[in-house]
Structure formats: structure tokens, C-alpha cells
């Protein structure tokens, strides 16, 4: 009773996702409080050593479905539903990431189970888990409990810290017959990189560009501004990367990078939650946006309400003049 099953996402070669490792660490702590155990589910090409090594994050057992492909949700729903039903897990936990949303949602339907998403923290009350979920643009936090079992918890990106605890896990291979509809999605290509391979993680100052720039050309002004700082680089929101304005490697957020530079200067960025989670730990945040109601102003240290096309070039000029 009370066991927690965690999905551990990997890149196809058994390198596990940091958010999944965070979820494993959190599950192990919570299971400790509940007097139960945490286990992981992995699919695809994961070696014995790679699977056993997940024990370092506190799980005692790793269920491995070797023949199930990594990267598509529904086959993994089949695996997790079977493990939860056969071995009686009370909760399923997912780190931040898109696949966790899909698998968690599928389990909700399959097991008639409650689900909470964008969870930032999980606590124990009366021997049960309560998920904390920010709502209404993070202006309030709802405590969500579950009716019946299992309860499905989908974390927000970076919600759970990775903790190495030492130890190895027992690996149990599982055979799962896939549902007919789970075989009707086929991965043609996974993890394609688009655009230049830029490095934004080493920069001290990041100029983050969003849709408010108006066009791909707007990024030229961002690059000039970034150049006016010492060790500056340009980052981008998902919307503009999907629009082809800037390379994927520069993207911040749920399906991009997480950064914490000394300064994040957001221009034309509205501040959607999925962007926020990737940059909110920056030491200082400045936002320039013409919409005074943009959510970005809620978590900026300095907010400038105005036309970025007027402000950015002058700011670049002023910084360059100072540098000499």
C-alpha cells in the first residue's frame, strides 16, 4: 500500500532526464513518509547497469519493458497500467515534461484515476499524498487530494530536485501486450535539432526574445543588445522557435532549456508559465513589453512598459557607449 511508481524518461540511449531523476528522488522521500516504497518504470534500450543505477535516487525496484519504444505515450500507458494493477501502486508520479502529461492523462482514463498537473510540490497528510498545484497564473496554490487509488501526479518542470542517495535497484523485466490503438502511432524521427547549435547555458546575461519582436528580424536587435553586455547570448520562447525565427537550441522552457543567468532580459515575452519555469531562477529579471498586463511583469525585478523597437536600440547604444 502507498507505493509510488515513477516514469523515468531517457533520450533513447539510457541517459535519464533530470526531471525524471528529480521525480524519483521526491518519490523516494514521500514513500519513506508513507512507509512504502518507490519504484521506476523504464522502456526501450536501457541496460542492466543503467536501470540498477536508478537506485541511487532512492527507488528500490525498476520495472523495465525492453520491447516498448521510448518517446510515445500510449505504449507506456499500457506498461504502467499493468504494473500499477499487478503490484498495487497507490500513486504514479511524473517529472516535468510533455510525455509525462500524456502518459499521466492516459492512465487517468485507463484506471479511472484522479490527476493533477503542473504540480510544484507534494506533501503527506493523514497517510495520503496531497499535490500542490499553482492555479490562475500562479496567483494561488490549490492543495489537491485524491478520491480512491491510484492518484496521478504530473510535476511542473524543475519542481523536484535531484538527490543522490546511494544504492542500487532490483531490475524486473515486464512483458506487456500493447493495446491495439497504442500501436497506431509510429515514431518517424525523435529529437531532431533545428537551427544552429547555440550555447545559452554558459552566458551570464541572456536576452530572451518572444513573439512581441514581431518577426525573425527582431532577433538581430536582440543579438546586438546581447553583444553590448559582457558574455551575453540570446534565448527564445517556444512560440518563436516553432515559428522558425530562432534555433531550437536557444529555447527556454518546458521543451527547452532551464537557465539561471545573472540577468535575464526579456523582450516581447509575455511570460507564459512554460517559459517562466525555465528562467525564473535567474538572479535578476528585466522585462520590456508593451502590454502592461503581461504576466512577465508579475515576476520581473524591473518591468518596462513600452515599445521594444524604440527602447532596445537606444539601450544597446547606451551600453556600447559605456563600454567604449
Amino acid at each position, binding site marked *: 500500500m502507498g507505493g509510488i511508481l515513477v516514469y523515468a524518461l531517457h533520450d533513447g540511449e539510457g541517459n535519464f532526464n533530470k526531471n525524471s531523476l528529480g521525480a524519483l528522488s521526491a518519490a523516494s522521500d514521500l514513500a519513506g513518509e508513507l512507509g512504502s516504497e518507490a519504484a521506476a518504470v523504464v522502456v526501450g534500450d536501457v541496460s542492466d547497469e543503467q536501470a540498477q543505477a536508478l537506485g541511487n535516487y532512492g527507488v528500490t525496484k525498476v520495472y523495465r519493458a525492453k520491447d516498448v519504444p521510448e518517446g510515445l505515450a500510449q505504449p507506456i500507458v499500457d506498461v504502467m497500467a499493468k504494473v500499477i494493477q499487478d503490484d498495487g501502486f497507490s500513486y504514479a508520479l511524473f517529472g516535468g515534461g510533455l510525455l509525462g502529461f500524456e502518459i499521466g492523462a492516459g492512465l487517468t482514463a485507463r484506471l479511472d484515476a484522479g490527476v493533477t498537473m503542473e504540480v510544484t510540490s507534494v506533501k503527506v497528510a493523514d497517510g495520503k499524498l496531497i499535490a500542490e498545484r499553482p492555479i490562475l497564473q500562479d496567483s494561488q496554490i490549490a492543495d489537491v487530494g485524491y*478520491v480512491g487509488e491510484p492518484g496521478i501526479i504530473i510535476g511542473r518542470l524543475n519542481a523536484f530536485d535531484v538527490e543522490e542517495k546511494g544504492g542500487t535497484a532490483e531490475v524486473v523485466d515486464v512483458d506487456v501486450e500493447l493495446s491495439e490503438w497504442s500501436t497506431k502511432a509510429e515514431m518517424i524521427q525523435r529529437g531532431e535539432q533545428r537551427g544552429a547549435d547555440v550555447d545559452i547555458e554558459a552566458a551570464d*546575461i541572456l536576452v530572451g526574445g518572444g513573439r512581441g519582436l514581431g518577426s525573425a528580424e527582431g532577433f538581430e536587435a536582440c543579438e546586438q543588445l546581447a553583444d553590448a553586455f559582457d558574455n551575453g547570448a540570446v534565448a527564445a520562447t517556444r512560440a518563436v522557435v516553432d515559428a522558425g525565427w530562432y534555433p531550437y537550441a536557444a529555447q527556454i522552457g518546458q521543451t527547452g532549456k532551464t537557465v539561471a543567468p545573472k540577468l535575464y532580459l526579456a523582450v516581447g515575452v509575455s511570460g507564459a508559465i512554460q517559459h517562466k519555469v525555465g528562467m525564473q531562477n535567474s538572479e535578476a529579471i528585466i522585462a520590456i513589453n508593451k502590454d502592461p498586463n503581461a504576466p512577465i511583469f508579475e515576476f520581473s525585478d524591473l518591468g518596462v512598459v513600452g515599445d521594444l523597437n524604440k527602447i532596445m536600440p537606444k539601450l544597446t547604444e547606451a551600453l556600447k557607449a559605456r563600454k567604449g
Partner: protein
Amino acid sequence: MKICVLVKDVPDAAVQKRIDPSTMWLDRSGESTLNPFDTHAVEAAVRFKEGDDLEVDEVVAVTMGPEGAQRALQKAVALGADRSVHLCDDALAGSDVCATGKALAKVLEAESPDLVLLGQQSDDGECYTIGAVVAEHLKMPSLTQVVGIEVEGDKLKCERQAEYGYDTVALTMPAVISVGDAINEPRYPSLKAIMGAKKKPVDTKASSDVGLDASEVGEAGSKTTVTALNEPPAKEAGEIIEDEDTAETVDKIVTWLDERKLI
């Protein structure tokens, strides 16, 4: 073939959203509109109907919600949907993701679509999950947060960003796909289309009409319960500058940066 588009009526972006403390549900009084992400789903469906890649006979907008949710259906019809279905019943109030997915799946089952499209997230709930829940009930393959769809025979080649870059996935129809806002630029409905949409009939159904038991939906059918609402940890409010004189604004920014040794 038939495309169903799931749409949602959400509070207008300009409306201050609040939770009704007596029910812990979102207060849905006040101005509302079609969820912006759903306009992209409607647009994608209408483009399939207009184009030659798929033989689309009709596009049906489907929603669940109180009476006012008809506004979202009207807007979807104004944007090009042929007709609409509204699941509306007091018993549905307070449905969580689990119960909502079950209820919507029942409506869709009755329509038996070849393709279900929806926006990847709602402006109010930001759940990202309904598409995958509905797909599982309908026993259809699904993909969420899709930003490009190409038809290849009876398959739809979809692309989207996942954790490691862009994924390309082929789905065999019938399928459920949630779309992101980068998939297209929705059209603006003409005045004629807006007026015409108000006259088109809406097929309103109660939960019993689609074979749902009252115990499966609403609060009774929900598997989560909000036990408390708390304030987030207080964060010091940032400084705000309104740009009136840009030279002055830039001076202020430079001084701010200088004080923090960022330049």
C-alpha cells in the same frame, strides 16, 4: 470523413479570474470567449475541409459546459465549423479532468469522428491533458502539442517539440490531436459569418442523452478534490517604468544595471 473539434468557453483574458471559495471551482460569471488555442484547432479542421488532402464532409464543434458555453460554439461555427454539439447539464458542474474526459468521450463516441482536434491547453485550466484522456477512452492513437500535420494516405504525419528536440510521429486515423498555436494563423470571421453562426442550431444534449450516469460526472464522478487554497510565498514586487521619454527610460535601466554590477 468527419472532424470533431473540442472547444472550450473560457473567461476573457482581460477578466480577473477567481475561485469561488464556496465550491473551490472557477467563477465562470463575466465575459468569456472561445479558448484561444481552440481557434487554431478549428482553423486546422477548416483548412482540411477546404483543402484536397482529406475528404472532409463536415466539421463539428463540441463543447461541455454551462449554458454560456454556447458562445464558444458560435465562435467556432463563425470560424467555419458546420454545426455544433453542446453537452450541458447541471450534473456536469465540478467535473475534474477524469470526469470531463469521460463525458466528452461519450459525446464524441456518438459522433464517431475520423479525427478529433483540440487546442493543446485552455487559457483557464492549463491542463494539457484532455486530448490524451479522451483518446484513451475512444481507443484512438493521440499526440499533443502538435505544430504541423501532413496527410500521408490514411496517416497523419505530425511534428511537435518534445524533451529532446522535434519529434515526427505518424498517426493512423481515427486519431486525437491537440495543437499548439504555431500550427496556423486563425482567420478572422466575417461579420456575415458571425451573424450566420448565431442562427445555426446547436444540438444540446444532457448527460443521459449520451449514456452518462450522473454518478460518473460532476463532483460525484471526480477523482480529485481541492482541499485548500493558499497564497503563494510573497515575492517582492518589481519596479515598473512606463516608457514616456525613451532616453530617460534607458538611463533608468542603465542605472539599475549599474547598481547591480551587471554592466
